[in-house]
């Protein structure tokens, strides 16, 4: 395995008038190629700030971000083409992350038309055939490409968002709460799809979420954040079964479990 991401003492402070808010404090993370990292924490814990810095969508106040051996936090946007092509994101709410005025096919191939990304890709990449490939990847019929996002359900829209992310053949997929806006019945489909795609395409995956059960299912390692700091990290099994901090234990305790009656005991886990 080779290292794909490394951050050193990463901090991000937002200024709001005279007040300053430390959204991320001294975060050092390494990510190997092929790793599946889950980042969990409550709103305001800094998990979204961290992935925005990884994706080069924001700049740290202090610290360094290295991607595939290149320091990216100081690079101007015009030199970030390689990052834009290799790192793609999937967002929480597919209702707001897909342009309602564009046809599905245009949405999916949009990353291929970006000037920055295009320079990084094989110039002869055929948009039609790539569209067909990624739509097959996410199990959507090709004739959906001529329709608009509003014609689809939440789960289908999230598939469209995933197809768009896959279009430029990225190495890293960053998913920010990919299933928390979906119904429970749809959630299973999208999680199965993500697991299959990561395995078949050899992707490196970063999943952000507040539901530890969901994140654990998708990831092999976990990072727990609280008030901008990383409070615990380790393999998914270790964090899940031997949490080291009270905060992680409280996150685990908060997972809603099916109770079979108001006073029924908690059902035993399979392990």
């Amino acid at each position, binding site marked *: 395995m080779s290292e794909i991401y490394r951050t050193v003492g990463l901090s991000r402070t937002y200024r709001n008038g005279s007040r300053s808010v430390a959204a991320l404090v001294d975060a050092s993370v390494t990510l190997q190629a092929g790793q599946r990292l889950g980042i969990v924490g409550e709103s305001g814990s800094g998990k979204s700030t961290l992935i925005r810095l990884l994706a080069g969508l924001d700049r740290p106040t202090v610290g360094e971000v290295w991607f595939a051996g290149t320091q990216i936090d100081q690079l101007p946007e015009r030199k970030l083409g390689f990052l834009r092509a290799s790192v793609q994101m999937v967002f929480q709410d597919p209702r707001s992350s897909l342009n309602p005025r564009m046809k599905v096919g245009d949405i999916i191939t949009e990353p291929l038309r970006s000037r920055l990304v295009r320079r990084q890709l094989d110039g002869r990449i055929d948009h039609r055939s790539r569209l067909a490939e990624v739509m097959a990847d996410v199990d959507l019929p090709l004739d959906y490409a001529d329709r608009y996002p509003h014609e689809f*359900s939440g789960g289908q829209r999230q598939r469209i968002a995933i197809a768009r992310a896959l279009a430029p053949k990225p190495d890293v997929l960053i998913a920010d709460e990919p299933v928390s806006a979906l119904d429970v*019945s749809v959630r*299973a489909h999208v999680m*199965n799809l993500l697991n299959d795609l990561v395995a078949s395409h050899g992707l490196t995956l970063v999943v952000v979420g507040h*539901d530890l059960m969901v994140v654990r299912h998708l990831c092999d390692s976990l990072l727990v954040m609280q008030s901008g700091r990383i409070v615990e990290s380790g393999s998914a099994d270790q964090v899940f079964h031997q949490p080291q901090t009270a905060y992680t234990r409280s*996150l685990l305790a*908060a997972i809603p479990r099916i*109770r079979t009656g*108001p006073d029924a005991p908690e059902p035993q886990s*399979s392990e």
Partner: protein
Amino acid sequence: MSLLEVEGLCVDFGRRRVPAVRGVSFSLSEGERLGIIGESGSGKTVTALAVMGLLPETARVRGSIRWRGGELLGRAEKELATLRGNAVGMVFQEPMTALDPTMKVGRQVAEVMLLHRETAGAAARPQVIAMLGDVGLTDPERIADAYPHQLSGGQRQRVIIAMALVNGPDLVICDEPTTALDVTVQATVLELLDRVLTAERAACLFISHDLAVVSQVCSQVLVMLDGEVVEAGPTSKLFTSPTHPYTRGLVATARLDLVNPGERLPTVEDYYALGAGQ
């Protein structure tokens, strides 16, 4: 006599050919808690809105909705408004849109009281503060003088619950009350709901797509699919031995704890396929 009786409820909207709710029946006695489970578009919210008389005018409602034996359908809006907020409290999903952003939250809670009670304005304040304290808000004085945007999501949802409960309702209708919240906040809000419903001896109609959440609060469950009830019964039975393939699939997909990480999760369609194969 039941507190609320819904019989053969059908709702359809203007142009749509397919009715949103088709022949839904259930009854709720004093202090009973009924969960309605279903995915988006299954008709669970429309059912709740129909009970409250809050459907838009384009809706055609047939069937019967009886409150303490009296028919609600066809009653004047003014009578329904008296019922709402007084005998029936409501908790909606998105606490930011359910609160008025330009009004301090204490006043918003007081407003609900003043509309339905004989209390004078100034006398309301101590009761509002006490209610905000009851829903587990520390420092209720400060919260009462805050605007919604100054509060966190969990605090806002507690304020909404305070508003729903301040008049001591007989029924509280909760529509996805914790879906917009973090898991940790969700756990505390569910505990709170359970506690205040017990303390007020109020009945509850609890709508959610999340089985685990429903099982925390309700003793009876109704599963809706495409506007119809496909299965109903006590929570304990429905979640341990569901019979309809949709319910079986739903229960299986919700049990992430029974699947090893990375393995394929069961889906609802698997259970339909099973049923067809038998």
